[in-house]
């Protein structure tokens, strides 16, 4: 093995050892990752409940005794019998006067497989009646379909034959406010995680080492400052990548528990989407760690580093917000680190196809800036100023 490799390997191993034995720093990274999906789940659950709140509808059933299963199905959809209406709502439902008539020979016809006619009576021009009527419609269709499917299944017919064409809706228009909030939150959160997760490791391995008097010893060794910076960058960004990866995994798992389709939002975080997000966020992780190291190395103490780098965290939270508020986005925003990525992430959540050119452009710019930061830092560590600040 040649000297460069031996040195770099030793530097990286040492940084990893220090980083992964610092339980406090790792806790921060993991906390971020675990809080994200939980927060998103709770938020969307509350929103969905608000949006998809199906208030009870009271229907006058005629002949309910003939079709107990149908009535039960209605009740599950919050379509209830008029007999159970609470007193304060009685007059409104009396006025709306929605009635369903179930024929006497329902059970017999059902058994023989004959078509059954239910009669729905209501004033269809009344606006207040329209949503309940639509819900009754859907409920009957769903009930009918489920019986139909079962009949076909019994006869050995694949029920998918009934749906030769399926429409998958992807809304490219501006999504409604609530959904936008969720996806924007996740986007910002991912950016924040890229910046936050590696933060303590970056500060600890730069300002922390200076404060513990081990930096001077390291600078006296026959190893180039570029390797030192690279090793620290690798270890800090590894922790950042782990944080982002955890968020992506946990979110894609937890989103499965929330049915966003109820509010008309199509949100899915499948493996390919998560992979694209990761690809987008990888350069950001490196960029963030490089920024943090660059700033932290110039501060005089651990505390100063913490507060200064803390301000850096505002950037990833602030930029996507501003970008999403902008209606006319100038072209150059696409190229900027963070702004570029946040726009692409927004598009991914909207379901728009990924613009690979934009992905590569913004990644290239981000990596270029990272490389510039690393080289500048390596040069700075050679300067006397840094040495003078040692004591």
């Amino acid at each position: 093995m040649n000297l460069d490799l031996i040195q770099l390997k030793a530097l990286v191993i040492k940084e990893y050892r220090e980083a992964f034995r610092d339980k406090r720093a790792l806790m921060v990274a993991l906390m971020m990752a675990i809080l994200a999906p939980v927060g998103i789940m709770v938020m969307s659950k509350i929103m969905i409940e608000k949006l998809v709140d199906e208030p009870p509808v009271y229907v006058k059933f005629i002949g309910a005794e003939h079709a107990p299963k149908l009535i039960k199905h209605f009740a599950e959809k919050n379509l209830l019998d008029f007999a159970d209406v609470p007193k304060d709502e009685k007059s409104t439902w009396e006025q709306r006067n929605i009635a369903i008539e179930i024929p006497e020979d329902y059970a017999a016809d059902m058994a023989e497989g004959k078509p059954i006619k239910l009669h729905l009576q209501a004033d269809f021009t009344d606006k207040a009646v329209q949503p309940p009527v639509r819900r009754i419609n859907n409920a009957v269709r769903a009930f009918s379909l489920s019986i139909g499917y079962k009949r076909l299944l019994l006869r050995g017919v694949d029920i998918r034959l009934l749906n030769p064409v399926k429409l998958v809706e992807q809304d490219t228009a501006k999504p409604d406010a609530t959904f936008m909030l969720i996806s924007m939150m996740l986007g910002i959160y991912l950016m924040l995680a890229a910046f936050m997760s590696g933060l303590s490791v970056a500060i600890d391995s730069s300002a922390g080492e200076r404060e513990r008097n081990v930096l001077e010893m390291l600078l006296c060794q026959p190893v180039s400052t570029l390797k030192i910076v690279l090793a620290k960058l690798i270890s800090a960004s590894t922790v950042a990548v782990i944080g982002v990866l955890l968020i992506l995994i946990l979110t894609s798992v937890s989103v499965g528990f929330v049915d966003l389709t109820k509010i008309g939002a199509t949100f899915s975080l499948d493996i390919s989407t998560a992979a694209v997000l990761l690809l987008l966020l990888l350069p950001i992780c490196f960029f963030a760690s490089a920024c943090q190291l660059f700033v932290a190395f110039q501060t005089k103490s651990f505390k100063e580093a913490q507060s200064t780098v803390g301000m850096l965290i505002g950037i990833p939270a602030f930029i996507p917000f501003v970008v999403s508020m902008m209606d006319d986005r100038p072209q150059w925003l696409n190229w900027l680190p963070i702004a570029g990525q946040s726009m692409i992430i927004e598009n991914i959540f909207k379901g728009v196809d990924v613009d690979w050119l934009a992905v590569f452009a913004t990644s290239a710019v981000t990596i270029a800036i990272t490389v510039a930061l690393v080289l500048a830092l390596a040069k700075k560590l050679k300067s006397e100023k840094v040495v003078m600040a040692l004591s």
Partner: protein
Amino acid sequence: MIEVNNLHKSFIDKKDKKNTVKALDGLSFTAKDGEITGILGPNGAGKTTCLRTLYGLLSADEGFATIDGISVTENPLAARAKLGIFPDKFGLYERLTAYEQIDYFASLHGMSGQTKKQAIEQVIQDLELGDLAHRKTVGFSQGQRMKVTLAQALVHQPQNFVLDEPTRGLDVMSTRILRNHLAKFKAKGHCILFSSHVMQEVAALCDRVIIVANGKLAAQGTPQELCELAGEQNLEEAFVKLIGSDEGVAA
């Protein structure tokens, strides 16, 4: 061999030009192989600045420093590879064990595989660090920390060895171990440069003593020669006389 030739170094305060500190003012000396050379000087005499220039951390305004003939300014990495350093302020990586830390510095000097392993085992044995080797360094006493720092400086068997006040905080036993170790190194033909405030130690250990004051060489010679030069019985009195004031000792 360590050679320092006509070093000048000023620290300029950009805001106030009058506030310029002249840390080194034409310092020259040579530390030969097979000898222990002691640097003595009051606080602020320029010892640490001189050593930092030697490590290549600071660049001199004038003059040069070489280690085994390699210029520190022109080729700092090659020069440092010939150097074992025990710094003025030393810290440990507290989340690493002593062994891992020594291993780290050995690797930085390009050692690997079996050679590295043997070198680490050897230095641990020499410094009697066996019991501590696989403990994290976080709770180590001052003397134990000192030993680990020594081990990491010595593990690659450097031809030249620079120690900045190595015996502070060491108990008698540890000091003896260190002395024996330095004597062994000397016998093997290594060059040892040693700064200290403890006069007895310098007198007992050093072949040659360099006295630095105000960034200049004030006197040099064997401890005996210095005493004769100042006309004093012990090195402490000679030292005070040679630097021309007694304020340094009080500090």
